[in-house]
């Protein structure tokens, strides 16, 4: 029965919530600003962290294992190894490169004299065929390299050795550090918002006392405050959304020519919408929970 009454009174509660925001002007503005600033902080740091994460992943993706086959075996024989390599755990793709193609690559890298020199090897190619192997997870690159080395007819499998290992590890650290930073910041921000809302409600303790005095049920008292929290969260997330919308599109259009493809920023759409959605949800959710918890304290009989 109480629930039905709450639903029926929802428009009235909404009106009350807006009235409260308007009539408690200074307090409301300070709450909205607290939400705005914290969300701004979260969104800017978050966007940076996400992009750095993307970059580290694309760096890792570009790490490959170079597998050289024995010189003696023919291309056809070398190609038979493909299913075996692909069967290894953690291998994403394996691309075959024939003897001829290997020589082409080599010649490509030389200057004019060298080109002429290596062109003369065309008839009697001393190079073996090769595979370029991509792995699913950069962390596994060493293990996969070792496994490939043990296969038949493999002359040498290299992944860049220690330096690759160190790079992968430091990228991992950057990612984890960023994630922890964002999560920590979010928690702090949520506490800040909840605290501000708590202050605005504590200042209205007498009001709640009076409501109880005249026989308002607990939900009747709570609902307008909860709606108020939601609206404050909503209003507070407006500016951060605008900042992200214009700021990120501007940044993206500026950076697209500057950064190499491997370090490119995430496409602005739907990324901006996702960020906006998260911010609205965070603002409203925290407003709602903050006011729910703060009011609860005054509703104990």
């Amino acid at each position, binding site marked *: 029965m109480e629930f039905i009454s709450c639903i029926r009174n929802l428009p009235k509660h909404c009106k009350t919530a807006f009235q409260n925001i308007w009539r408690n002007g200074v307090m409301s503005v300070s709450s909205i600003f607290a939400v705005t600033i914290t969300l701004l902080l979260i969104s800017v740091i978050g966007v940076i962290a996400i992009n750095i994460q993307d970059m580290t992943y694309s760096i890792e993706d570009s790490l490959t294992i170079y597998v050289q086959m024995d010189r003696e075996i023919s291309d056809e024989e070398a190609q038979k190894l493909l299913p075996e390599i692909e069967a290894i755990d953690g291998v994403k793709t394996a691309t075959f490169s024939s003897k001829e193609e290997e020589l082409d690559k080599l010649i490509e890298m030389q200057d004019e004299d060298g080109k002429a020199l290596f062109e003369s090897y065309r008839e009697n190619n001393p190079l073996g065929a090769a595979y370029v192997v991509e792995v699913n997870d950069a962390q596994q690159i060493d293990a996969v390299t070792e496994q490939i080395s043990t296969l038949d007819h493999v002359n040498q499998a290299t992944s860049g050795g220690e330096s690759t290992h160190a790079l992968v590890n430091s990228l991992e650290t950057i990612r984890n550090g960023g994630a922890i930073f964002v999560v920590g910041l979010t928690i702090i921000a949520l506490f800040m918002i909840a605290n501000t809302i708590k202050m605005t409600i504590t200042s209205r303790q007498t*009001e709640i006392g009076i409501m109880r005095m005249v*026989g308002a049920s607990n939900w009747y008292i709570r609902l307008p405050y909860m709606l108020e929290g939601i609206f404050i969260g909503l209003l507070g997330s407006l500016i951060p959304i605008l900042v992200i919308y214009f700021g990120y599109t501007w940044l993206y259009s500026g950076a697209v020519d500057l950064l190499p493809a491997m370090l490119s920023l995430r496409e602005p759409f739907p990324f901006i919408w996702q960020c906006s959605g998260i911010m609205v949800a965070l603002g409203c959710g925290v407003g709602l929970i903050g006011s729910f918890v703060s009011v609860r304290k005054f509703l104990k009989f």
Partner: protein
Amino acid sequence: MIKLENVTKVYKTGVRAVNNMNIDIGEGEFVYVIGPTGAGKSTFIKLLYREEKASSGKVIVAGQDVSKIKNRKVPYFRRNIGVVFQNFRLLPKKTVFENVAFTLEVTDTPKVQIRKKVRRTLELVGLEDKANAFPHELSGGQQQRVAIARAIVNSPKVLIADEPTGNLDPDTSNEIIALLERINEVNHTTILVVTHDKEIVQKHKKRTILIEDGCIKTDTSVGGYVDGIH
């Protein structure tokens, strides 16, 4: 209407505020509750509207055993009781009309009814022309009238007034008590007035209950202060 049977209230601090109190107040009665500060008057009325729970004994108000009401149900129980305080306790951000209407809004009264009842009640307390004023724009006496209007607008069976004239000058105090008397006559509401004000008790003579040290010292239907008590 109000009945206490062997009621004792001991606070967590060990203070025995009400000690084995027995009382019976009938429907439509007008009763003063007097006594020195710290005698237990406030605790007594807090027991009536379930702001405090009795440690032992039975408190019956409007036919309900107050200490047996579940926390969740307390708001519904309070709709039977109007309470008026010394410091008025109006909602400062709401107009006079909204303050009075608030009591009805929480009980899901239809809008048309609310408007009618609020207007009628404001007329009864003589504030029909102040409906759109905010509390801070009114004098103390007028604010107390609003508080009374709010307390009686949903026609409660019991009206409890805790020092309703404590902040008011003698003339205004008289007007307030006269208003309470009128409500008692017109609506047959049971009225309980806690007061320190000797003059009022002497002037508007009613049943007077003297509380001292958590007990009922005297209970007279004659009215007025008993000799030797201040």
